């Protein structure tokens, strides 16, 4: 019995099956050409379409109607109105908050519409449109907990936040120990179960929660100065940002932003 033929057959089989997989992978994952997108003035991911990243799990800004219906929300409609003004189709890509900036950096989206607060850190890496939401951050605690009455009181306390959010930074800066969670629903659960002392979030999120859950036993004990949220772009998108700003200015003048605020919050939150 000779060794050589067996080895050769084994090799042949091995090579063949690896080749099959490689082929299958290539044919299913034809790399999207990055050249095709670069031929319009805005440098869009997909020509003629504004590709928008949003969570889809952050009511009332971006969520699914009734839980499993269409994507709706204040930010979603603002983005739709902007795309409409620019004469572009719109395509939403839903992604988790913690991966949303990675996707923008990797050139998978043109813009993030997800209540991104403007802060100096982010301004180093990203471009922002003019703000479309102005609202304060709040410290939320359980009713009757009088040990926290300001951001300073968070020193040494435990809060629940999603990792890359502005609120996470606010809590850390205040000296809190931060537990990382997926979103508002989990943060509130931890708070109500007494496993964390507080959570920091957008005032509008809190008000919406009260509207949906009138018997919630939570209280706001502190507010920051209002922060501004804006559409977020990578640094190379100057032409697009300029066009988006013009669109937002028109939408503001026409009262569209105010209307959308009324629809989702009962008030204009755009200034």
């Amino acid at each position, binding site marked *: *019995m000779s*060794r050589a*033929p*067996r*080895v050769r*057959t*084994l*090799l*042949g*089989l*091995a*090579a*063949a*099956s*690896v080749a*099959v*997989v490689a082929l*299958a*992978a290539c044919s*299913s*994952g034809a*790399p*999207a050409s*990055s050249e095709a997108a670069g031929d319009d003035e805005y440098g869009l991911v997909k020509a003629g379409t504004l590709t928008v990243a949003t*969570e*889809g*799990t*952050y*009511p009332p800004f971006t*969520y*699914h*109607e*009734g*839980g*499993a219906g269409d994507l709706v929300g204040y930010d979603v409609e603002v983005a739709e109105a902007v795309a409409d003004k620019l004469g572009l189709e719109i395509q939403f*890509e*839903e*992604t*988790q908050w913690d*991966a949303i900036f*990675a*996707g923008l950096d*990797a*050139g*998978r989206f043109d813009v993030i519409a997800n209540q991104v607060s403007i802060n100096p850190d982010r301004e180093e890496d990203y471009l922002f449109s003019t703000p479309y939401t102005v609202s304060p951050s709040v410290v939320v605690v359980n009713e009757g907990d009088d040990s926290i009455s300001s951001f300073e009181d968070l020193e040494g306390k435990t809060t629940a936040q999603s990792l890359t959010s502005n609120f996470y930074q606010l809590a850390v800066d205040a000296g809190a120990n931060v537990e990382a969670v*997926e*979103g*508002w*629903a*989990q943060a*509130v*659960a931890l708070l109500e179960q007494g496993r964390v002392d507080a959570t920091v979030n957008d005032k509008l999120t809190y008000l919406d*929660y009260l509207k*949906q*859950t009138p018997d919630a036993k939570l209280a706001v004990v502190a507010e920051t100065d209002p922060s501004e949220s804006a559409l977020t772009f990578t640094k190379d998108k100057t032409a697009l940002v300029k066009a988006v700003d013009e669109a937002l200015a028109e939408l503001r003048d026409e009262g569209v932003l105010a209307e959308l605020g009324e629809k989702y919050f009962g008030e204009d939150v755009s200034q």
Partner: protein
Amino acid sequence: MTEWQLALDSFWPLLWGGISGTIPLAVASFALGLVLALGVALMRLSRNRVLSGIARFYISVIRGTPLLVQLFVIFYGMPSIGITIDPWPSAIIAFSLNVGGYAAEVIRAAILSVPKGQWEAGYTIGMSPGTTLTRLILPQAARVSVPPLSNTFISLVKDTSLASLILVTEMFRVAQEIAAFSREFLLIYIEAALIYWLFCLVLSSGQNLLEKRLDRYVAH
């Protein structure tokens, strides 16, 4: 809306997320991963140092790093070298590579479990080594590898929930959407878990049928 009503209303969207996302993702990845695993297993068994070295290295990387990182490298990392792959293909590639690493070891062990005498028997009746492998050894190895490979497949079904992090809408992503809207995340996640379980029950009974069928190939 009562919790029961919510659970009831969520059932079809969740199930649909499973049928249109989770299952195709798992089946496609497992099929590709299995082909890859057979190749890697044979490389690992080969006497060629280079080939077995490559196979060892690949298995080591796949088994030694978090699946989430593997998904991220393919989806978020590749664009930096000019290769941008859509969410679905990215997920299938990552899961196939992952299955390839784990299943390769299962297949290697299964091949080695077939008694050496079976090779001799093949040569005695004039079979070439290649024929012996495909006609004699692999069928018997297949029977041995069904339980551990079923394990790999059932794990994969649940691992696909990670694809929600690279823009693939599968059952767990649907659960997150409903949970965010209703804020009843525990209820909805448990409901999704029950549907995963349902899928896995179906798969387990498939495993039993397959085992019975393959019993024919086992020398008694």
